[in-house]
């Protein structure tokens, strides 16, 4: 049923249809509306056979999910940003133990400086943690991906993060088709764990493994993610059959057929990019888009095939590895080993900075003229950066960088005065 609602509420309603048995939550923006919604559904009886636990930290949230999942319950939590970092040790533990927890990550930047707005730094900080990471382009997909995530996680016995852009999606009101319980039940069977804590059949879970088998255990986690490269498109096809719409899959292409330039991105910015590309297409430019839905496992072959005919790739990413550059672009490069075209890494939208069509248009025109640097920071205020560098050159006790920049910009003064 099509419903005009906030992205978070669409996700909450859909997660509830997945019949989670244990939900643990710790508040952090911009994820809070999701677990608030679920808590209400548990309290008013809409969501039955479910325990909702208010924990004292994200570390505890993931740990409660670990215990619940190991005891055979379908377990769910949601977090963002600092919360994901605070639970980091348990994030790795959940995947290492092979527990199919599903977690929504309402993507948000990581401080310092503290910043509540959207980028993908949080997800990227855990990209090697052994979780599958699926990125939603819009609220419909954010909701749908959760249904697929529970199915896939439980098939593989691996945890999955469903990433949706904080505020841009979580707080946006859109029409979302919330499926019926019957539809979801037909797609998502009850959880049948591979390992379970049960006095009827005692097992020891989580004991030490030495060098004699550690590599093999880790390799099996990789092998399972490689299996997921086959299963994700199959599950998306099944989803389409059951629900009548496209959601999920490994990658999504747009106007790529004869493109000489392809723009690669993750998440909600794909909408703005598509609009920009429509305009450029109208002006006769051969440019298309490739959206990555499954960032882990990384669809190396699918991307390689999709971009084999292009001349250059522009990766617009809301994250970067300080001291190196792009993160997504480095993975994309591995997919293009057989087609060594130029790849431009563009860092954009950090800490919620708006990625505008005007900036993207200018960026893509430069890329098509091969005038871009290998690494570009979209809309970077070079003057502000240089002022601070100069200050640090002249003064040892130059003070907090972030405060200096804002003073220079006049924002602090404007608000105070």
């Amino acid at each position, binding site marked *: 049923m099509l419903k005009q609602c906030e992205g978070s509420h669409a996700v909450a309603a859909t997660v509830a249809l997945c019949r989670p048995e244990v939900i643990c939550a710790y508040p952090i923006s911009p994820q809070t509306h999701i677990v608030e919604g679920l808590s209400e559904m548990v309290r008013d009886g809409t969501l039955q056979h479910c325990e909702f636990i208010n924990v004292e930290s994200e570390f505890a949230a993931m740990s409660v999910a670990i215990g619940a999942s190991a005891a055979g319950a379908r377990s769910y939590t949601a977090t963002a940003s600092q919360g994901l970092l605070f639970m980091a040790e348990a994030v790795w533990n959940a995947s290492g*133990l092979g527990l199919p927890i599903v977690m929504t990550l309402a993507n948000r930047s990581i401080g310092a400086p503290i910043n509540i707005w959207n980028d993908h730094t949080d997800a990227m900080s855990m990209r090697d943690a052994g979780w599958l990471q699926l990125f939603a382009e819009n609220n419909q997909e954010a909701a749908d991906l959760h249904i697929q995530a529970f199915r896939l996680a439980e098939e593989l016995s691996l945890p999955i993060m469903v990433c949706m852009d904080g505020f841009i999606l979580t707080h946006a009101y859109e029409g979302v088709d919330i499926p019926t319980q019957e539809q979801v039940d037909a797609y998502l069977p009850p959880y049948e764990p591979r390992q379970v804590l049960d006095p009827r059949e005692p097992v020891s879970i989580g004991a030490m493994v030495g060098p004699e088998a550690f590599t093999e255990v880790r390799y099996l986690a990789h092998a399972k993610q490689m299996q997921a490269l086959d299963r994700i498109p199959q599950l998306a096809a099944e989803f389409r059959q059951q629900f009548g719409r496209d959601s999920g899959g490994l990658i999504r292409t747009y106007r790529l057929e004869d493109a000489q330039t392809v723009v690669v991105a993750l998440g909600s910015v794909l909408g703005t990019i598509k609009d920009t590309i429509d305009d450029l297409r109208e002006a006769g430019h051969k440019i298309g888009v490739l959206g990555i839905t499954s960032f882990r496992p990384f669809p190396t072959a699918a991307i390689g095939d999709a971009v084999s005919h292009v001349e250059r790739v522009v990766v617009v990413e809301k994250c970067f590895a300080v001291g190196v550059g792009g993160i997504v672009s480095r993975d994309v490069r591995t997919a293009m080993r057989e087609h060594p075209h130029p790849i431009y890494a563009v860092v954009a939208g950090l800490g919620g900075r708006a990625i505008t069509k005007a900036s993207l248009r200018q960026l893509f025109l430069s890329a098509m003229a091969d005038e871009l640097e290998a690494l570009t920071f979209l809309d970077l205020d070079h003057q502000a950066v240089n002022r601070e560098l100069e200050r640090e050159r002249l003064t040892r006790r130059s003070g907090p960088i972030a405060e200096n920049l804002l003073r220079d910009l006049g924002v602090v003064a404007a608000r105070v005065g």
Partner: protein
Amino acid sequence: MTATVIKFYQTGTHTVGNRLLDPSQRSVQADMRRTNSLNSGHRACQGCGEALGARYAIDAAMQACDNQLIAANATGCLEVFSTPYPETSWQIPWIHSLFGNTAAVATGIAAALRVKGRSEVRVVAQGGDGGTTDIGFGCLSGMFERNDDVLYICYDNEAYMNTGVQRSSATPGAARTATTPAVGPAPGNVFGQGKSLPLIAMAHEIPYVATAIVSELRDLEAKVRRAMEIRGARYIHVFVPCPLGWGTRSDQTIAIARLAKETGIFPVIEAEHGELTAVSKIRKQRPVEDYLKPQRRFAHLFSPAVNTAAIAQIQALADRNIRRFGLVDAAAAAGAE
């Protein structure tokens, strides 16, 4: 005649002979049907107080719930000596997740059991003092305040033994550890630091808090049994000497534990909903020197010169425990003088 006077059958000890007791009162360990939940063959050191405490506690918990028990275990000696795959000493469903999250993992297990309608299956969480009083403190406090249906057992050997005897917030003043070396003007651990987890647990007003000691294993069993009668958050803090970390002879674990109690250094108490309900009295009070001397971690207090000031500080702490918890009967104290 319904009452039977229990006699000590072995002169010089306080051990009660099971054979003098009604079968229903005999210890779990004396029962042929004991579950050996932590089975023999593990890698604990000789004389390990933790292995002894865990064996008694878990078998008692098993008996109390008709063997329907799941355990969550913190990283630490108990986890390491009991399991490296493919071997495991655990005859019960058992999970080790991390060092600092055991109480939360247990909360998750309890939640899963509740939602699945398996209320007959009970959950125990266990860890050492580091995993309980330091790194796992946040999760433990959260489990307490939510009153989750978990029995948490801390085996307190007063330092991080698994990593090579480093100081924890349960390490006593003056004790030598690898990070509080016995050098300088105030050798060993600093006085005035550390915390009492049993008192902190009581402050959460959870249904049940108890301390126990491996020299009184029947008392430990009884406390586990009592804890298992209750639903909600429960905490048992077991004092477990560590021959390796304390520098004691491995055949002295029980004797050292007994001295900890008889000096007043470790009060053995019971509390419900934040109120003290019982204390185990000191039978024959001893000066703290008797407890300190056999332990190499306190050797610097006696050699090359006797550090009377530090010993007096430790005695004052023991005396405070005795006053605070009423560990010595006034009549007994008068008789002793």
